[in-house]
């Protein structure tokens, strides 16, 4: 071919490639930010008053009863599970490899928060905010937030993998039913229990009595689990609590190093502000 037409060919090919990139990759990531929420009307706000009262700060009940206690297998105590966690052969092999090479402590020692479902089982409270088309869960542990869209939008067909997934919800009577997809494989179902990018989580939030909430969590994963894994948690409302700040890096003296060794920083403070790392 002559030089000029080679150049034209290359430019044309690039143009075609750019168009196809834009129409597939670019748009499907942008799509997560393109559902337009209409302005709420006064009847939208009035409708919220008819929903069950989820307002206020709720404390997960730890220990005893229908509660999940996630115990780090690295310290030799097997996890207590409400239903058996049955992994596929491939994922059981992955789990055993993770346990065999277990770090002395998990990455939360380095202030990395857990993903779903673990972030909902922390010994710190959470607050539910109900606004038109949205339920927002303010999670005190690690100062995290979950957004559950109740505005009728569909789940994205190609969600970005994230720690908490993308969540949509709807009300079935007095029960908030939430479906979440798009989980990063950087997170685990439980310590040392990996999941695939096809994990899905279904949650049902309901009041058992005026100040007691039950959250039923069902985890499914066609690649990692042979059966759904179901956990139930009980939360109690505290009308006099407020969500407090939790900045993990404020004064974190724990760590797990790159060899998996756990450590602690006992250098006494001098009274000056901590130096940036």
């Amino acid at each position, binding site marked *: 071919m002559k030089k000029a037409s080679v150049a034209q060919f290359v430019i044309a090919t690039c143009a075609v490639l750019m168009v196809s990139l834009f129409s597939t990759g670019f748009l499907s990531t942008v799509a997560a930010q393109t559902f337009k929420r209409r302005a709420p009307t006064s009847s939208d706000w009035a409708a919220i008053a008819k929903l069950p009262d989820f307002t206020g700060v709720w404390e997960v009940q730890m220990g005893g009863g229908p509660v999940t206690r996630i115990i780090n297998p690295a310290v030799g105590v097997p996890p207590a599970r409400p239903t058996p966690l049955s992994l596929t052969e491939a994922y059981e092999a992955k789990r055993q490899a993770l346990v065999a090479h277990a770090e002395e402590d998990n990455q939360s020692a380095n202030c990395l928060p857990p993903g779903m479902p673990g972030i909902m089982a922390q010994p710190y409270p959470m607050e539910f905010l109900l606004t038109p088309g949205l339920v927002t869960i303010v999670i005190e542990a690690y100062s995290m937030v979950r957004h559950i869209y109740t505005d009728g939008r569909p789940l994205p067909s190609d969600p970005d993998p994230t720690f908490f997934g993308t969540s949509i919800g709807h009300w079935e009577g007095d029960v908030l039913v939430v479906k979440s997809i798009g989980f990063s494989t950087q997170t685990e179902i439980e310590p040392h229990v990996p999941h695939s990018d096809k994990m899905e989580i279904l949650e049902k939030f309901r009041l058992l009595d005026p100040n007691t909430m039950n959250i039923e969590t069902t985890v499914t994963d066609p690649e990692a689990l042979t059966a759904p894994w179901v956990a139930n948690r009980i939360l109690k409302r505290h009308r006099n609590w407020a969500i407090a700040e939790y900045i*993990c890096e404020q*004064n974190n003296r724990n760590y797990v190093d790159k060899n998996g060794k756990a450590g*602690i920083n006992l250098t006494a403070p001098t009274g000056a502000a901590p130096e940036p790392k």
Partner: protein
Amino acid sequence: MKRVKNFALVAAMQAGLLAVVASVAAAHHGFAVFDTSSQHTITGTVKEFQWTNPHTWVWLEVPNDKGGADTWGFEGMSPNFLGRRGWTRKTLQAGDKITITYFALKDGSKGGAFLSCKRPNGDELKMFGASPTEDN
């Protein structure tokens, strides 16, 4: 005494306290470095009480056998947890003389996991226990 009444008074047996500690430690980072099989006590003077996340820290000056003093560091529960159980950032202050009950560090370093402490007048401050229930 007013101050004693403000603190979570779960009169747990040793095993009961350990069960509570274990369940809190479970969803809790950082406990891998502590030997939770036995408790120890140590007496000293508070140098500083850090009211910070993810853990409060009690820094204690403890006389050593060389005629001087060492600084020991005790990791405590989050101020978010403690603040709901009667603690404030002024509960312990520099100069307070206390006896701390703690889990030691596996490597023997001068520090541990703060479980509770006693003042010379007998007041006991605990870090664990259920949150108070209130009339909603």
